[in-house]
């Protein structure tokens, strides 16, 4: 693991967040009672299979869920002492980018193809700082240098399509950090990157974090990113957090059968593995969740009780809990 910044007081608290979508199949409970907190300078990883609600959780925190079909049904998102869900749209616009920023999954769609990258970074800065144009350009340049865009003065005038995937990703990163937010959410920020470029980018994020005590949330499928970047991990399944702990809790003592299974299904570079464990079946569809524990149909430890009652959250240690009847 990369050495972390010093971890301070709680900056963000999410409490019992529920975000539902109305679809023609019925109500999709994409996020169904998610709670967690985040400290200053801390990196939290959120892992789980495709469709388990990771992105919708983050969109809810940014208040960017499309309404309709979506609706934040309940919950609190307290950032720096303020519940974001109580703010007006205008107030939220001021907070987005300046206090909490999101780097979305696909760098190409988050950049506008008709504007130069310099002007897009400048625009992000202007949105939140009332400063003269001249110094906006200087600041944009500085941010681009910070994310290691070579020859930033000239590359500023480039359009997104003139840059490689790795560079575009860094530009999106530059926009994310340009307003020095307290919390930066990175949704699968490196999936489209090459291994060596990914390593550069992850190191960069860590460096920025150390410098500014940024709190990071990493959304990913990839336990490698978690092992490298995160202090704590939340494992999501079917719209809920099923296990949460420090990165070592999760890797050394996974307690939820789903976490165990996920870890066992990842091949390792350092050793020969005869056969990978594989979880049979697929994650449930969120408009038609089974009663009880949603992992029950795939769980090797399933008991009668699992099929009727949702398991309670059971503490494993001060830093570690999981929701599973096997632990009760």
């Amino acid at each position, binding site marked *: 693991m990369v050495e972390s910044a010093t971890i301070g007081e709680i900056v963000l608290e999410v409490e019992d967040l529920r975000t539902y979508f109305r679809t023609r199949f019925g109500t999709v409970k994409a996020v169904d009672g998610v709670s967690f907190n985040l400290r200053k300078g801390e990196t939290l990883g959120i892992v789980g299979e495709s469709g388990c609600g990771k992105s919708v959780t983050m969109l809810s925190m940014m208040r960017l869920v499309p309404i309709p079909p979506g609706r934040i049904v309940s919950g609190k998102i307290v950032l720096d002492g303020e519940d974001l869900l109580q703010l007006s749209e205008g107030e939220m616009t001021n907070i987005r980018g300046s206090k909490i920023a999101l780097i979305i999954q696909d760098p190409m769609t988050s950049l506008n193809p008709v504007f130069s990258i310099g002007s897009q970074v400048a625009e992000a800065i202007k949105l939140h700082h009332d400063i003269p144009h001249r110094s906006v350009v200087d600041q944009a340049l500085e941010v681009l240098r910070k994310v290691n865009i070579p020859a930033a003065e000239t590359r500023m005038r480039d359009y997104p399509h003139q840059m490689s995937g790795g560079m575009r990703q860094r530009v999106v990163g530059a926009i994310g950090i340009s307003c020095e937010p307290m919390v930066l959410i990175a949704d699968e920020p490196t999936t489209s990157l090459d291994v060596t470029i990914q*390593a550069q980018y992850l190191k960069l994020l860590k460096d920025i974090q150390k410098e500014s005590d940024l709190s990071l949330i990493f959304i990913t499928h990839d336990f490698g990113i978690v092992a490298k970047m995160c202090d704590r991990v939340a494992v999501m399944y079917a719209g809920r957090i099923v296990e949460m702990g420090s990165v070592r809790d999760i890797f050394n003592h996974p307690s939820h059968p789903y976490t165990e299974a996920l870890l066992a299904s990842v091949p390792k570079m350092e050793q020969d593995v005869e056969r990978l464990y594989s*979880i049979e079946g697929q994650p449930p569809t969120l408009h038609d969740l089974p009663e009880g524990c949603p992992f029950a149909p795939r769980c090797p430890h399933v008991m009668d009780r699992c099929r009727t009652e949702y398991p309670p959250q059971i503490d494993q240690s001060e830093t570690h809990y999981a929701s599973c009847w096997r632990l009760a």
Partner: protein
Amino acid sequence: MTTTPETSGNGQIILEARDLKKHFPVTKGLLFSKITGWIKAVDGVSFEVRVGETLGLVGESGCGKSTTAKMLLMLEEPTDGSILFEGEDVHLTTQAKRREYRSSVQAVFQDPWSSLNPRMRVRDLIAEPMVINWDMDRGGVMERVQKLLNDVGLNEYHSNLFPHEFSGGQRQRLAIARALALNPKVIVLDEPVSALDVSIRAQIMNLLKDLQNEYNVSYLLIAHDLATVRYMCTWVAVMYLGQIVELAPVKELFENPLHPYTKALMSAALPSHPDTVQDEMILMGEVPSPLNPPPGCYFHPRCPFAMDRCSVDVTEAKEPSPQHWVSCHLY
């Protein structure tokens, strides 16, 4: 590169690439009549695929992996070099032999189903290669479709569905079933699990291994993820900018990487545990363009070990230890 590692099956070479090249013209002007340069997508690549074994091809985006695969699949004409199948040059042999080659070498891509007719039912999509290539009656074809679906862990119920009714992992199973239809001897797997979730990935990798054991089919596996390669492969070739810079049996390559680029790739790979100690070797700069590769060793602008001669002299393959090939002036 003629001997076999201990891990091999019977070691017989089935498919061989000899100094393969693919250069794409860069054109300009009206009707693109003026050629202004060449993209050397693949620039002199040689390797062997053996019966029942898996050769991994790794390297950064744009280094020419898919172009190499397309040449083997005869979807791209090589600019130079040759492809030998069971010892015979596929471009110089008879029409009939070439047909046989095409059905013996099949492919599975990252999401092949996105390009298939969405209005065809799964059973017809899987039957299609047999209908085209084999003189087999309908009943026989349908029987084989069922057998193939069972082989990949699906059942009769699925044969009536349309591709969009499947999840990503199931679609990849279908693609594998279709690739197996003609009893191929080699399957080219171009990033077959990259788009899948970890849990589904494990299912598909295990399936591919089982099928290899059962049918003794050979794989050429293209992948980004080194852990996937370690799990799946017998041999690994590392590509950089259109060339193979290192080739070795899988264990040897992971335990004793020689080329600086291979070392950088390994140190950049994500750890499997937070306590994994990694020697950080973060490369600066981007992968150079194959349109304008640097002189000497193509890796020298990013290489932490570059010496004076590296920017001048081209490298050639050496075999510093048995079966371990590397192209670098350090050896």
